[in-house]
Structures are given as C-alpha cells and as structure tokens.
C-alpha cells in the first residue's frame, strides 16, 4: 500500500514537472494555455491523491479550486482576453527555447540536489514531493523571466503557484492550505483583471523604457 501511495503521488508530481517543461517548450499562446490547463488538472489530481492518502478532506477543496478555477476559468478567461485585446499569438521569447530548456534542466537538477540531500531524514514522500515542488516553482519563475508576453508570464506565475500548492499539500497536516490556495486564487484573479483593465497587451515590459523614464522624471 505504502509503495503504491508513494508511486502514484510520485508520478503525479513528476508529471507536474514534466508539464512545466512542456510549457517552456510552447511557442503559441493558445497551446500554452492548454498545457497550463493540463498542469492544473494534474495538480488537482495530485492534491486529490494527497487528500485521499492523508485522509484530509479539506484538501479536496483545494483540489476542486485547482480544477475549477485554474484548469477551467482562468484559461478560458485568458483565451477571451487574447481574443478581445487582439494579442499577438506567438510567444515572444527573451531567451531561445533551447537555452531555456537547458536552464530548466539545470534548475531541476539543482532542486533535486538541494532537496534530496536536505530532507534525508524526512519521509521519502515528502522529500520527493518537495523536490518536485521546488522544480515546479523554479520552472514557473523561469517562464516568467524568459517570456515576454503578459499572458505567458501570468501562466508562469500560476504554475509557480501550483508548485506551492503541491508543496503545501505534500506537507502532511499543514494547516491553512485551503486558505492559502484561496488567497492565491484571488491574487491571480487580480492579476488577470489587471491585465484586462490596464490593457497590458503584449508583455509586462510593454511600456517603452524611455517613455517610462520620462513619466518618472528620472531621465537626464
């Protein structure tokens, strides 16, 4: 039983990392959103499994939030935004896909080295879980850093947050997990609304640097 528990959660968490890699690989916005929806579904599965094996019913709420909000509402909303704002559908990369993948692998290796050594005393499940979660967090951040489109950056942030939820649920008995996942969902909602309201069409750095400096009165 223990080994089955372990294998399933292991493979789900591993799947999450894999899907993070897939995100790095995407060069179309729509496909990125789809991959992200897959990410969220996988997360929701992983959380459900954790709820089951930890016998923690409140985690089902978290899983439900992940499924409904992140796998369905957000991708749909982003689809609409892309359409309505007429966002260019290619993903502009600041760093090429190849180097990004390499960097991603480096990051995963780094988190493995760190976490596996770190949590030698903890139970294997938590250990693996943490290592994967850290990988997901770092990969999410990598997406944010290397992609120029606002939408892909939001996606990066959300996958980062998925990593957090993974870690939180993997930490057995951790209180406040639900609250945290709710809080984060609100945060993400804010971001998405922000994009829509402020018409940040292309990227976070859409504003031309020079214009930005003038508005700050800092240019000389």
């Amino acid at each position, binding site marked *: 039983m223990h080994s089955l528990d372990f294998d399933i959660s292991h493979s789900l968490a591993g799947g999450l990392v894999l899907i993070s890699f897939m995100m790095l690989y995407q060069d179309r916005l729509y496909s990125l959103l789809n991959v992200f929806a897959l990410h969220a579904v996988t997360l929701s599965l992983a959380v459900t499994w954790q709820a089951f094996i930890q016998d923690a019913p409140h985690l089902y709420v978290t899983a439900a939030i992940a499924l409904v909000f992140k796998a369905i509402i957000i991708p749909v909303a982003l689809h609409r935004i892309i359409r309505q704002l007429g966002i260019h559908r290619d993903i502009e990369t*600041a760093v090429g896909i190849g180097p990004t993948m390499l960097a991603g692998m480096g990051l995963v290796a*780094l*988190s493995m*080295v*760190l976490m596996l050594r770190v949590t030698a005393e903890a139970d294997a499940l938590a250990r693996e879980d943490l290592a994967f979660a850290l990988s997901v967090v*770092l990969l999410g951040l990598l997406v944010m*850093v290397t992609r120029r489109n606002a939408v892909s950056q939001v996606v990066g942030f959300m996958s980062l947050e998925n990593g957090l939820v993974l870690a939180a649920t993997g930490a057995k008995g951790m209180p406040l997990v639900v609250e945290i996942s709710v809080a984060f969902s609100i945060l993400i909602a804010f971001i998405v609304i922000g994009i829509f309201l402020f018409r940040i069409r292309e990227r976070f*750095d859409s504003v031309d*640097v020079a214009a930005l400096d003038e508005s700050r009165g800092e240019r000389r």
Partner: protein
Amino acid sequence: MLTAVAAQLVCVAALLGIAVLAVALSRAKAATALVYGATLIVCALALIGALRALLAGTGADEIVLPIGLPWLGAHFRLDALAAFFLAVVNLGGAIASLYALGYGRHEHAPQRVLPFFPAFLAGMNLVVLADDAFSYLLCWEFMSLASWALVMTHHREPGNARAGYVYLLMASFGTLALLLAFGLLAGPAGDYGFAAIRAMPHAPGEATMVLILMLLGAGSKAGLVPLHVWLPLAHPAAPSHVSALMSGVMTKVAVYGFIRVVFDLLGPPNWTASVLVLSLGGVTAVMGILYALLEKDLKRLLAYSTIENIGIIFVCLGLALAFQANNQTLAASLALTAALFHVFNHSLFKSLLFFGAGAVLVSTGARDMDKLGGLIHRMPVTSVVFLIGCVAIAALPPFNGFVSEWLMFQAVLLSPSLPQWGLKIMVPAIGALLALAAALAAACFVKAYGVSFLSRPRSEAAANAQEVDHFSLAAMVILASLCLFAGIFPGLVIDALSPVTQQILDSRLGAQSHLPWLSIIPIAERRGSYNGLLVLVFIAISASLGYLAIRRFSSHAVRRGPAWGCGFSDAVPQAQYSPDSFAQPLRRVFGTLLFAAREHVEMPPPGSVKPARFSVEIHDLVWETLYGRIAGAVDTASKRLDRWQLLTIRGYLSLVFATLVTLLLVLAIWS
C-alpha cells in the same frame, strides 16, 4: 559649590539656552545685541573658569551625566589639556561676540546666524570637555553641523551652497574616520570611555592605524593637505566673526582631538608615526601658504593661511611624537609647547585678521583685493591692528607668531639627538620647509596688507570706505594687544602651558617667568634664548634715537608731490601691482610644478592696435587629481548602476530569479 567641570557645563548649557532663545527672538530687533551680549558674558565666564583650572593645576575634574550612550553616560572631564583649549575656545568666542555686537548689525538675515552662533560655541566647548568616544563624536559633529548652518547663512551667494556642501561632506568623512579610530580604540567590547581606552594597551599595528585615522579625521577638520579643500571654501563663506571662529578656534579643536587621542589615549607612539605627521605637516605648511599667495580674495587668503599654520602645528606635534617615541621627554615637551603656543597665537592673530577682513567687507562690500586699496587713509585703527596681525602671522619679532616659530626651530635643532637616521635627515629638511613657509607667509601678508590697505584705491567703494564701529574696533584692539603681549612676555604663556605638557608627557620646560629680564630659555642658556621685551625695547630705543637725531640734525621739510611714474603721471589705479602680479615671481618659481600654472601671452603683431592679452591658468592639482577623480568615479558608478534602475518588470524579475538561483547554488555547493 560647583566643580570646575560642572561650571563649564553650566556655561555650555547657557550657550545652548541662548541658542534656543535666539530662535524665539529671531524676529526681534534687539535680538542681535541680546544674543551676542549674552554669549560674550557666558564665554568670558567660561574663559575665567578655564584659566583658573589651567593655572591652578588642580588636576583632572570629572563628571558623568546620565545622557548620551545609555550604558556609559556622558563623561566630561576638565584637565590641563582641556582647560588650555577651553581657554582658546572661549577667548575666541568672547572676542568674536564682542566683535559681532557691532558687525552683527550689518547682517541682513540675523535669524540665520543668531541661533547657530551660540550653538557652535557650545559644540566646541563640549568637544573639548567630552571624555568618552560617543560624547566626543556627538559634540564634534554638532560643532560641524552648527558651523555648517553658519556657512549657509548667505546661501544665496554664488558658491556658498557648494562651499557648505563640500564642508559638510568632508566633515562627515572626518567624523567617520574618527568613528573608526574610536572603534579600534574601544575594542570589540565597546569600552568607549576615555579612561578605559587610556588604560587599555594598544598593539603597535593598531596604534599606527589609529594614528592614520586620526590624521584623516582630525586632519580633515584642521585642514591638512590634501584634506583641506573644504576649508578655503567654507571659512570665507560664513559671516566674518564666524570665519574667525572657524579658522582661529575650530581648527584648534581638531588639533585638540589629535593631541587627546594620539598623545593621551594611545600611549607611547612608534617613531615611524612621527614621520607621517612631520611630512604631512611640512607639505601642508608650504602648500597652504602657496595657495594663499596665489589668492586674491582676502578671506580665502586668510583661510589658506590657516592651512599653513595648521601645518606648522602638526610639524610641532610630529616632532613631539618623535621625541616622545625616543623618551626624550624634555625635547618632546619643547615641541609640544611650541605647538600649543602656536595654537594660542594663531587663534589670536587669525581671529584678528578675519575681523579686519570683516571690517573691510562691511565698509567696502568687497573681499576681492582687486577692488581694495588705500584703506590705511580711511580706516586708521583697523589698518593698524590689521598690520599687527600681519606682522604677527608672518612670524616676525617682537610679536607672538615669532615666539612659537622660534620655539619650534629650537625643537628642530634638537633633532640630531634622535637615534633614527630617517628622522635625523628628515627633520632638518622639514625645518627648511617651515622656513620657506615662514618666508612665504611674510610675502603673502605683504601682499595682503600692501594691496588692501596700502596703495591707491582700486574701486569707488574702497575710496569711500569708513572706519567701522567701536565694538569691532575694541575686539580687534584687544586681540592686537594680546598678540604683542604674548610676543613680549612669552615666558608667561610657556609657564601657563607647562601643566599641559606635564599632564601629557610627564615633563615640563623650566619655569620661565622668574628669569631675568623676562627672557625665555627653553632648554639651556647656551643652546638658545630669546627676549621679546628687550628686542622691542631695543628697537624702540634705536628708532627713537634715529628719530631724535634726525629731528635735531636734519631738514624737516616735506613736500608733497605726485608719485614718480617714469614720466607717466596720473596712471589709473589698475596700473598698480595687483594681487596677481604681486604673486607673479613666486608663482613662476613654484607654480609651474605645484599648480601647473601656465602664462599665456597674446601679443598682437607689430603695427596692430589690438591690445596685448595676458592670462594665467592655474590648476588646483589636489582638487583635480584627487577630488575631481573621486567625484568622477562616483558619477560614473552611479551612472552605470543606474542602468539597473531602468529595467522592465521582467528585468527586475530576472534579478530576483538570479538572486534566488545564486543563493540556492551557493547552498547546494556549500552545504
């Protein structure tokens, strides 16, 4: 009954009270008279207290107040060294207040001076009294801050803002250096009390480090080259009575700090340390006076001359260090006496000269010597006292400046007894530098007096100048008489200084005041002696003899006529020697190397009616090579770093990301 130190602190509190009162009164008409009158009285009381403590020689008197650093309290101590410097401070303060009773009336923004003037005096008093590192630094910076506010009095005048800025920056630099020095002295446990520091042994390397830091810290306040740059900017920018205090007194407080830490707290020095002090002092003396020589702004000239005098004082201190390091305490006390004597002297004549410059400024509105001239006819009293100041500062007998330089040369002449070859060879060379500085000082003050007070007026304002008020004149006359007094009765001053050397070096010069004819014999009669009184009497007798003889035997006829101008009579006043042209020979000799001075002559071809043009370019190499580069480096660095401020959000995120990854990598590799 108050103890001596408590009485001094009461005076300080009174000064601070006056400062607060001045804020409240600043709009009132009588404020000027009230504030300066009150500071005059308080400073006079404090002066009496300090003199009593110095002359009575009752030993140290301490008090701890429950303020300042919480677990330490604020320690204050009045010993002979502090008493001497308190006397200098309060003498300067009292006379400056007297002067300001008249001079202050011409101030158009008194509310910018009145609160800070007493605060400044209080700060200087407190620095001298402070007996723990925290109080010391706090008071030190308070003093800087108050004087900075005074420098900013005339903030609208061009250049003054920059002067204040450079001043504040250098003051802060100095304070930080002092802070580091005290940090070293106090050790990791943080024993900031001077008593604890004095009791602690200090390793040689640490001592050298402290000395260097003190040279940076106290030296920047005193004006050692190359830390002097703020001084000629800031001192002249303040109102003249404040300039007098800054130049005459505040630099001495810096000297006090140096003596207190290096001689008192640090214990016996290493002789190599003295090499540093000596060479810095020598360079400062010569450079300072050369700058002064090239200057044509009267107050800046005086400020540069302050740098020279500080150099002289530091040379004396370096000599004292050298002798002390070799246990030749009598010689050390001679050198220290010379230093302290010069401290006293310089506070007198530099205040006098700044007062004179202030009087000139009031009556002509000009500091630029190119606009002065002929004031000896319009300002009879000022011109006499200013002349006395000039003679005194040029180290000419029978005035006081000569006595301290004479003592210093006596100390220099004792240097062959030093065992170290480096010092043996170096000290005479430094002595020659000082002789050069003295001669240049004479040249410089011939120029200052000759151009401003003698010759023909170079501007309308100078031609119509009026003598200043009686308060100002009284202050200047008092200082001039003190200059003469200290010059002809040097034995009294030396005896008054002996408690200080006794305290610091455990050695003193023989008592002088009972010697016949009031001579001074610092070491032994066969080594050298001097009698200012007799020199004065001789000169007076000879001059009167000459005068009487001439009155008796020669023609009395006097005919007034135009000056001989080679046939060109009635030349315009601009044809006279100007400050620049007066300095030209010496500029040619020294300037090419030290100031990268170049003369450009534009001579029209024969037959052309165009005027010939002559211009001189002078570079302040210290400023350009050192400060200019530092400013440039800061500018470049900030420009480069500023690029990191113009990133996009993604850029910033990348920074965060990079930091995270770096830290994780470090963790992965390190653990």
